[in-house]
């Protein structure tokens, strides 16, 4: 086992930690820092439950080795809002009942926030008709496509799409 010292910001707080070089960002959050809001669904980049914002961009934290995060800014679901003051996206998920078991939910919410930012920046998707529009066009079909990296086995997609649509300005 090789250990590394690492400094990174999680939800705007500086953390100095020693990590196993094999440790993913996901397991650093969950097992070392007890930030268990970020979920492990597959550990292989195939479900999206572990989605966090890494320097503002959505990533599967199970595919990021912690040691690569020196100096990085990570936002997890715990950093978005509190039970009394939810982030608008969290509030939209509550209002639209865009969750059932809740296990995919933190990843869905982080992913949705990251996705809206990609749209603002004009990042096209597989179904975009224009590759150049800034911001990119966002309709139901685009949301479905862009959110397809976040699986929900409970089948809450219909409500997830509605929740996100309600946040499209």
């Amino acid at each position, binding site marked *: 086992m090789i250990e590394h010292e690492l400094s990174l910001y999680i939800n705007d707080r500086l953390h100095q930690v020693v990590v*196993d070089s094999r440790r993913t960002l996901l397991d650093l959050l969950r097992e070392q820092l007890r930030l268990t809001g970020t979920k492990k*669904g597959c550990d292989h980049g195939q479900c999206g439950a572990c989605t966090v914002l890494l320097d503002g961009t959505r990533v599967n934290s199970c595919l990021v080795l912690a040691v690569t995060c020196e100096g990085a800014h990570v936002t997890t679901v715990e950093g978005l809002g509190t039970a009394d003051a939810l982030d608008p996206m969290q509030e939209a998920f509550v209002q639209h009942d865009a969750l059932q078991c809740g296990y995919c939910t933190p990843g869905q919410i982080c992913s949705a926030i990251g996705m809206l930012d990609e749209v603002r920046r004009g990042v096209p998707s597989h179904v975009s008709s224009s590759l150049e529009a800034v911001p990119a066009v966002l309709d139901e079909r685009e949301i479905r496509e862009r959110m397809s990296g976040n699986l929900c*086995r409970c*089948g809450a*997609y219909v409500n997830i799409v509605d929740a996100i649509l309600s946040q499209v300005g």
Partner: protein
Amino acid sequence: MSIQAPERLSFIGRDIERVDARLKVTGRATYAYEYPAEHVAYAYGIGAAVARGRITGIDSSAAQGVEGVIAVLDHTGAPRLGETNNRELLVFQSDRVSYRGQLIAAVIAESFETARDASQLVSVSYEQDEHDVVLTEDHPASFRPEHVAYRVPEVSVGDVETALAQAEITVDQAYATAAAHHMALEPHASLAIWEEDQLTVFESSQYAYEARDVIAKLFALGPEQVRVINGYVGGGFGSKGSPRPQMVIAAMASRVVGRPVKMALTRQQMFPVSGYRGPTVQRVRLGANRDGELTAFEHRAAAQTSRLHDFAEPCTTGTRTMYAAANRFDTHRLTRLDVPTPSFCRGPGEAPGFFAVESALDELAIASGVDPVELRIRNDTTRDPSTGHEYSTRNLVACLEEGARIYGWSRRRNQEAEGWRTGHGVASSMYPTYQMPSRAAIVAYPDGTFAVRLAAVDIGTGSRTALLQIAAEQLQVPLARVNVEIGDTSLPYAVGAFASLGTASWGHAVHLAGREMRQLLEGTDTIPPEGLRVEVDTAEEIQARPAKANAAFGAQFAQVSVRRHTGEVRVDRLVGVFAAGRIVNPRTTRSQLIGGMTWGISMALLEETALDPNLGEYVTSDLASFHFASCADIPRIEASWIEEDDADINPVGVKGVGEIGIVGTAAAIANAVFDATGVRVRSLPVRLDDLLGD
């Protein structure tokens, strides 16, 4: 003292926010693997590399030598376990391998990374036997099981052969459905903590008391020595209805190493180890007159199980209750193969069974020229055609009519545009209404608050919210004054969350407890500091129910588009109307129904865990190769219902909505595919290559 509010408070039927939604969207709901435990160790399982055979040697010395490894457990040194009727749980007790991927050893280490890494260093040798993993309709080793999901395997009424011979129209077709895995998003996980001879397990379980009793027996403990906590569960769909090997391994390892141990199945391990919907091969024979009125109804099903445990998918039991036909026969065959044990999976039996039956009905509609909605209405019945019992409520016809109205069935048209052809299909849904005894306690406190306590569980269904509404309605106090405590065997006994019987069974108990508490408070002046407590059991009332047939019904309408040159199928629209008793919470009910219908689309078009007959293994064992519906696969889904007042089933009138949404959906879609293309697909999932070739 009176807690009677001046105006009657009503909460049942109200659209109330899911009570744990805020916890879930902020990541503060705690699932089994996430409970903090001091000095916890990690277990990582190792699966067998042959489908049938014997372990001849395990060398774990290299793994033992890795810094951070605490122990390696396998059949050569593992503690002996006690009794169980599920041999899947007898982990590390013998050198036998019964299916590929069966857990045969585990590494316990200081960290997950070390445990996983060291597991690669364990070398295992086998004596391999020839395996048999392929289900066929008439497998030579097949037999009629003694029961299928607690029901008789075969029912015969009248004389099907004669009726078929005399029928003006007959349908005789074979149908098949693929193996598919539950794949709850939360992997099966257990955290076991021993304190002296007391064992606490945080468990991803749909049924805490069952898990407790099973684990107590295996470790030769009294039930009171085991506590199981399942506060939040990340989906189950049947796979978490009974304990899985990781629970036994965590408890065993924790005892061996003297520390808390946690273990989660990896996503890949979930395929062999956590159950699945087995494949089915079915045959339906229908006889009818020229008007489409059924005279004969036969349904045969073949399914597989493992060599460890008999589980028979109850494919034809739903058929017994569906349509009027004087002559009926249904039966099951089961074959033991060298495969993992299948298990209950959302809409067990009905989901695959209705694909066959509701497809066959569509074939009869085509053959008789009767509209498929009308055909189903014509064959409706007021009595269960197999038992003769009257239905407490049966609103299949109302669902068909209302669904047809919402969908615009009479105005449907086939279109072709830009290479896409559109078609429409319909199918009926049904799920029996079950109920099992449960207990519930309510405590009233001097500050005017109440605690509702029972070992129910909310696996995402919204039961926490529904129970709150039922309790507040009985107590006649605002929701904010009631706390629902569930998910722990230190609470009164409650049955598990399965077969759509959870809210009905628990709601009944909470309703009774609430009523008793209200009566108690009416004769009480002051509440002592420790509170006043009542506890009830529903067993007697359930016994006393009238002998009637109880089931929820529904109708689903699908519009699909099929791309002419590629065979790609897209569901454009799905409408479902259901009659499932009283709806406690429209918001969570709609979510449940939509969830089930989403599963139905997924079953129709995507789900198949592919078997490699040479390896004897389900090979598409991750989420990149076993596909279930993603966001892009799911259109707008419209789910609504017809409210029913059914006091015969339970005092709250709840029938349950967890399963019915998936029943019939795949048939509605396959029927729509036929309508669009003229190609009848009788084997799920519908594949591109089924639709190519013209």
